[in-house]
């Protein structure tokens, strides 16, 4: 097992903040690898110990990851000038929110770059639809300044709605999804 995965397991009892920091490091490492095909074969040993009995087996996540990356590239190209961060920083921010949602093992997922400098995700798993809008703070490459707005529907019933700081919102979303047997493994 790679060293950076081993560290996560060793410090798992040391609180949410450490988890978040490690998660960012992990994302950075994955971004450096920049290879979608090896992504889940790498991450699986890490996630599997925290997801038993929750998510359905990861099957189409690789396909969705590639689709999200392609959708981002195409749409970002059309709106490049509206953003003020460089390509690398923006793509990293997109990967962060994309990856959190992919960990839910969605059945379907889409990404749209909006005219408000945000990324709008629609994620569907069973009868749960998760809408996430990631407002990118364009002045700084710090995730904590980004905002997320999340709405969760079960069928046609709205069961969750929250907006705020990126990581605070992810932390609030996690237990809601867990009620519907959906986990974001790094936060489970």
């Amino acid at each position, binding site marked *: 097992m790679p060293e950076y995965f081993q560290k996560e397991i060793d410090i798992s009892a040391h609180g949410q903040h450490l988890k978040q920091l490690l998660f960012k490091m992990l994302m950075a490492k994955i971004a450096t690898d920049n290879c979608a095909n090896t992504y889940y074969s790498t991450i699986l040993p890490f996630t599997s110990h925290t997801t038993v009995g929750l998510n359905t087996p990861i099957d189409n996540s690789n396909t969705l990851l590639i689709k999200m990356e392609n959708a981002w590239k195409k749409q970002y190209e059309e709106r490049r000038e509206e953003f003020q961060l460089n390509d690398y920083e923006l793509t990293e921010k997109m990967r962060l929110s994309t990856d959190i949602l992919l960990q839910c093992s969605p059945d379907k997922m*889409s990404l749209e770059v909006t005219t408000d400098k945000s990324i709008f995700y*629609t994620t*569907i798993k069973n009868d749960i639809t998760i809408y996430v809008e990631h407002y990118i703070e364009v002045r700084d490459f710090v995730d904590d300044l980004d905002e997320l*707005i999340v709405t969760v529907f079960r069928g046609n019933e709205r069961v969750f709605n929250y907006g705020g*700081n990126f990581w605070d919102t992810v932390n609030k979303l996690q237990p809601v999804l867990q009620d519907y047997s959906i986990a974001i493994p790094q936060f489970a």
Partner: protein
Amino acid sequence: MNYPQELLPQTDYKLIDCNVENCFLLRLVDDAIQEEMINPETGYIRVNLICSPRERIYDLSVILLGVYTQNHIPIELTREGKTKFGGYCEPNSTISDPPVYNDHFVLNKNKRFWVSKISSISNIEVPYSRDNSNHTVRCYVKHTPTKWNFWHYSLRWESSEGNLDDMDEKKRGKVLQRMANEARVMLSRMANVEYPQIEALPASCYQKKSPVAA
């Protein structure tokens, strides 16, 4: 080709004052966006087609279906037409020189649209939390006739946090984010790209005096 008279304000018209909850609103989609209307991944309408990049999502131009029908969808104002006829007006304004074909309007048979039943979106209060405090945002429709189209409506949003104009820039930005997000979520779920079955709007809803029956 003459401009359809039934779209223009008339001297005996008033703001629509009957219950239109069961009517439909139609939104014309910007031609500049070439994407498919429906996202094949999710089955929902693409959020970028809910409004054009030039407009703000929290104040959308829409059209009440009834007298305006699918036959009118191809009508598209030219740049000059927008300048001359795009502005708001009183419902009983007199348009003495209606739009002229080619000068002020053209026909675009490829015009795309989405529709939504008013009761699906109007006056629905949506609770939201922001930084651990609870608020609501509400969508409402307002009849806002324009010189080219008496049936023009505005789809707007308001927040329980107060009037946007009274907020400082930072708070206003955050509230607008919530409105825009809710508009995307709600309309992507409720909007449909199929033209619906519509019923004629009674003349008493928009005429000051209904025509006397023969």
